[in-house]
């Protein structure tokens, strides 16, 4: 751990270390068959790996970033920030994008004002771990009244087995500012285990308009990701939040987006696609803490291989948050007979005079759609690919970021190609059977 001049941070870290020591490695259980267990993870064998700064961006990162011109970039490899860049013009305008470590040194008061406002080391073993042990990290501050076109980018890279990456990102977007912030989690292909334990907090202040994307693609190595992400939306501010989960041995994420003041608005769009032995456990909360706020959430997922994916999406409208209007839709598509998943929308409403609706489906590809496409000359495997891509297209359209859209479309196509044979077999087995769809619907008004 770096020696810090900020004693306030030392205090916070030591509280978190205590919380960490007091917690057992958890097993998460939910109603039904769902259990997320870390018993296969050899936590003691992992440690933070430090690296020298890099002049050139590694290919695995540059491929994901594509040709988009960036306003800023912070790249963390293992435990170390290895590359940072900030457009000089943005620096001149007062934008700060750097490692959190450095921000603590250079902007101690600013960081202290926001640090861990919405995160707590008391939330569990790994929330405590990231709060206690984070290194490198990311800090973004956009001063008020700025409109930034080029995306601000951060990347957490794990490219060595044995790595424990404790991450912390803090982003503060000033009043009436507009920007787009993308955080990518990328893993190289390797044999062996690694861990990413992350905390993410973003504050969109009054009147801000922010696009936030999380793109997680840990690859085919055995990377475990246990993270908590929280987005707070201030008065009359808007945040479009896009978490995308495309790979990781085991992922357990708590994703919360909070309309904290009147007039705040969220557009929350998620996507996941699991394969092989991957295990994904997502719990999202759209929390409305004040009245006169709005929300619109769509999550879609697909599963191949022997993968497991559970999505639970909660709308929580607290007491007195009247005149809240929000809805949540979640869909999940099974593409393999060995895959298992669920998609559960739920609702807690502690006030009246609101409208909140939610719906969820778990289903398989529709044999009528496949037949229809085949009657137009499209071979079965091609029809399946087009239908799955079409299924995701609704959420891809909502990403609102061409570079990210292209990346997501490419990865979906790659995953479908990799699973082509098993999907064809699965759909073939299903032909003629009754579709095993079930619907979950709920309303509250």
């Amino acid at each position, binding site marked *: 751990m770096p020696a810090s001049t900020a004693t306030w941070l030392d205090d916070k870290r030591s509280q978190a270390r205590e919380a960490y020591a007091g917690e057992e490695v958890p097993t998460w259980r939910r109603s039904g068959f769902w259990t997320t267990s870390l018993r296969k993870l050899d936590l003691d064998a992992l440690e933070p790996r430090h690296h020298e700064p890099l002049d050139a961006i590694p290919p695995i990162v540059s491929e994901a970033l594509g040709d988009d011109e960036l306003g800023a970039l912070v790249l963390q490899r293992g435990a170390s920030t290895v590359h940072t860049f900030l457009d000089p013009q943005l620096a001149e305008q007062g934008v700060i994008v750097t490692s959190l470590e450095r921000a603590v040194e250079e902007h101690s008061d600013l960081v202290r004002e926001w640090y861990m406002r919405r995160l707590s080391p008391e939330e569990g073993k790994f929330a405590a771990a990231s709060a206690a042990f984070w290194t490198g990290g990311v800090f973004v501050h956009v001063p008020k009244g700025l409109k930034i076109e080029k995306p601000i980018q951060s990347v957490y890279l794990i490219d060595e087995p044995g790595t424990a990456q404790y991450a912390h990102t803090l982003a503060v977007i000033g009043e009436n500012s507009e920007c787009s912030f993308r955080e990518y989690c990328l893993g190289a292909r390797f044999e062996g285990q690694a861990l990413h334990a992350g905390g993410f907090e973003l504050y969109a202040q009054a009147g801000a308009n922010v696009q936030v994307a999380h793109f997680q693609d840990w690859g085919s190595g055995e990377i475990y990701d246990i993270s908590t992400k929280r987005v707070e939306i201030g008065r009359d501010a808007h945040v479009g939040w896009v978490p995308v989960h495309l790979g990781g041995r085991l992922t357990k994420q708590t994703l919360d987006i909070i309309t904290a003041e009147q007039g705040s608005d969220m557009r929350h769009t998620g996507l996941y696609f699991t394969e092989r032995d991957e295990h994904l456990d997502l719990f999202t909360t759209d929390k409305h803490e004040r009245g006169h706020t709005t929300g619109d959430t769509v999550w879609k997922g697909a599963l191949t291989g022997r993968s497991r994916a559970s999505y639970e999406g909660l709308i929580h409208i607290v007491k007195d948050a009247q005149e809240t209007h929000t809805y949540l839709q979640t869909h999940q598509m099974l593409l393999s007979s060995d895959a298992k998943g669920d998609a559960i929308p739920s609702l807690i409403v502690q006030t009246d005079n609101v409208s909140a609706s939610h719906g969820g489906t778990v289903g398989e590809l529709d044999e009528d*759609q496949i037949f229809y496409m085949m009657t137009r000359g499209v071979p079965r495997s091609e029809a399946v690919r*087009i239908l799955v891509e079409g*299924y995701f297209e609704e959420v891809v359209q909502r990403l609102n970021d061409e570079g990210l859209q292209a990346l997501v479309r490419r990865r979906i196509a790659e995953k479908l190609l990799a699973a082509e044979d098993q999907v064809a077999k699965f759909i073939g087995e299903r032909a003629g059977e009754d579709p095993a769809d079930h619907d979950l619907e709920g309303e509250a008004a």
Partner: protein
Amino acid sequence: MSLEIQNLHVRIEEREILHGVDLKVDKDQTHALMGPNGSGKSTLANTIMGNPNYEVTEGKILFNGEDITEAAPDERARAGLFLAFQYPATIPGVSVANFLRMAMNARRDEQIKVKEFGKVLRENMELLRIDTAFSSRYLNEGFSGGEKKRAEILQLAMLKPEVAVLDETDSGLDIDALRIVSDGVNALRGPTMGTLIITHYTRILHYVRPDFVHIMLDGRIVREGGAELADELEEKGYDFVREEVAANAG
């Protein structure tokens, strides 16, 4: 060049629906297959196209002399068969234009050029009086009944099959839409496209005059004739045919 159905018996979920159907559609002919609900018309349409839910237990389907009874639906389509669906599926995330281009490319060795595709699409949309914005909508998503039928006929016009089966294309259309769709079919049919119009009602046959009419009852073709048979049916109704068949059987 023809579609020929010989002694076709078809089962769905253990129940036999078609009990030996014979029918031949040459590529310069227009046939109408008429029958009341539940007579097996749609079963025949689905079986011609190879829907896996329908099982052929006896007889065969020949296309241009080749036995296609066991062929996959996409092979039949690439050979030149087309079915305009009564209830076409929705294809989310795929625009009408992209879908059409994909379907056209599926039956060509060389991909169609973007410019050429655009031109053909425009011409056919004009023919069917379809608004240009239509082509960027996801196929059949949120389409009205009439829009779905027009999208089917647009595909027919773009794909130019050798034999087209139109399954209840007239149902659910108001008189203006029916006229537009009929004009489209008239522009496309014969001498290079054989057409099998499947319908419950005679009204589309006022616009698209068939060369041959076949009446189906309970999974069998019970009467055949020229266009005048449709007129007779309009006058007397299916019960008359049913009584006649019963009398002959007795």
